[in-house]
């Protein structure tokens, strides 16, 4: 029954499907627009600190907010693009922040390559939408790791260059296992190296890396601090508790290498801190994975898991909406910068424009997103 004619017809059919699928995949490489806020004084690139990144998907924008002479802080969003409160916290800051004294650097997409794809077999949405007064804005939901098109193949075992620590091979594309990076290393190590160079060349006083974790992961709704940053972070925890935001504090493990809170603290003068919120969309126990889960965190399986004591965060029918997770991050950022300035006056940064936790819960994220013109 089959012959060359049916073969050509079927081949043509598969070309059409490949075209449609290819178009969908290529769309994933389009990055969401971010409005340059009034307070942005300069936009740098990671390639300014490592020219080898120029023209690659590892090159990423660094938004600079420079006031009078004072302290400095770096905010890392998008280290793992499947942890959306990280990107959104950076975007809300970029579009609303004003700095009068000191300098704040914000990288919304620390691993820009990881935004250009998402994880196979996870069923994650490619993007999510947020309603604003001007219509909808869209944002990318990416992968935990660098796109394999930029770094391939993965070794069976990833050996962290600075320590010799052995990890699973796929961690070789995880930016938060690549620090302090290498100038002649893998693609991901080069991105890490550029971020370390940014910190060293600008003598950045504090670096805050924003993350999310699945609700069944023990380090969640928490701050992980390098020992140098611990005095600041412990004050931050108390201040946040006063504001009714429950948050844990974990010391950066000395033996877990390649992470920002360990390597940036060891290799630079910065106070290195990492913050985690609860994202059901990346959890193992989750049900249907769609935009709604990303935005609301509402998932009956997690409510059940909470009831039988399997989670490390409170979980009820209200889930953990994105505005709550962004509010936690922004509150933590504000507190860290303020406490650093109170403790060391030469590192003071004076700023305004970041919405508070309660404002975000009341008004939602859309209220603080600007119109794209």
């Amino acid at each position, binding site marked *: 029954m089959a012959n060359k004619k049916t*073969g050509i017809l079927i*081949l043509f059919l598969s*070309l059409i499907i490949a075209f449609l699928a*290819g178009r969908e995949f*290529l769309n994933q490489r389009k990055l969401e627009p971010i409005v340059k806020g009034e307070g942005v004084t300069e936009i740098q690139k990671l390639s300014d600190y490592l020219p080898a990144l120029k023209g690659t998907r590892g090159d990423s924008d660094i938004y600079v907010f420079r006031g009078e002479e004072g302290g400095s802080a770096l905010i890392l969003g998008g280290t793992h693009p499947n942890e959306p409160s990280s990107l959104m916290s950076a975007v809300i800051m970029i579009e609303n922040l004003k700095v009068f004294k000191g300098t704040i650097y914000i990288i919304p997409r620390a691993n820009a390559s990881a935004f250009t794809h998402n994880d196979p077999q996870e069923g994650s949405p490619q993007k999510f939408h947020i309603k604003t007064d001007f219509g909808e804005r869209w944002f990318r939901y990416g992968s935990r790791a660098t796109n394999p098109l930029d770094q391939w193949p993965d070794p069976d075992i990833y050996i962290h260059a600075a320590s010799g620590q052995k990890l699973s091979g796929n961690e070789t594309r995880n930016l938060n296992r690549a620090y302090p990076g290498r100038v002649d290393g893998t693609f991901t190590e080069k991105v890490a190296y550029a971020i370390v160079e940014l910190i060293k060349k600008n003598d950045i006083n504090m670096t805050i890396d924003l993350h999310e974790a699945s609700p069944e992961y023990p380090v969640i709704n928490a701050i992980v601090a390098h020992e140098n940053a611990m005095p600041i972070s412990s004050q931050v925890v108390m201040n946040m508790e006063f504001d009714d935001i429950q948050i844990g504090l974990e010391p950066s493990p000395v033996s877990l290498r390649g992470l920002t809170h360990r390597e940036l603290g060891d290799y630079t003068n910065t106070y290195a801190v990492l913050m985690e919120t609860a994202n059901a969309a990346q959890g193992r126990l989750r049900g249907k994975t769609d935009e709604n889960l990303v935005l609301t965190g509402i998932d009956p399986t997690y409510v059940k898991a909470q009831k039988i004591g399997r989670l490390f965060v409170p979980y009820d029918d209200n889930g953990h909406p994105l505005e709550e997770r962004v509010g936690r991050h922004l509150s933590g950022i504000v507190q860290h910068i303020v406490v650093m300035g109170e403790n060391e006056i030469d590192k003071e940064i004076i700023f305004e424009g970041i919405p508070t936790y309660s404002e975000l819960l009341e008004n939602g994220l859309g209220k603080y997103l600007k119109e794209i013109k």
Partner: protein
Amino acid sequence: MMYIYLVILFYILCTVILNLLDEKSLLKQLNAALVIIPLLLRVLLIK
């Protein structure tokens, strides 16, 4: 490394297409068509 990967992929893609055209069973032609889609996307470096 990337070029070796592409050469291998392109070779496999060509053999699958030739196989599809020569195949006498419709089911096997459809099977080959399914295999062609990811191979083609990989040759074009689309993930």
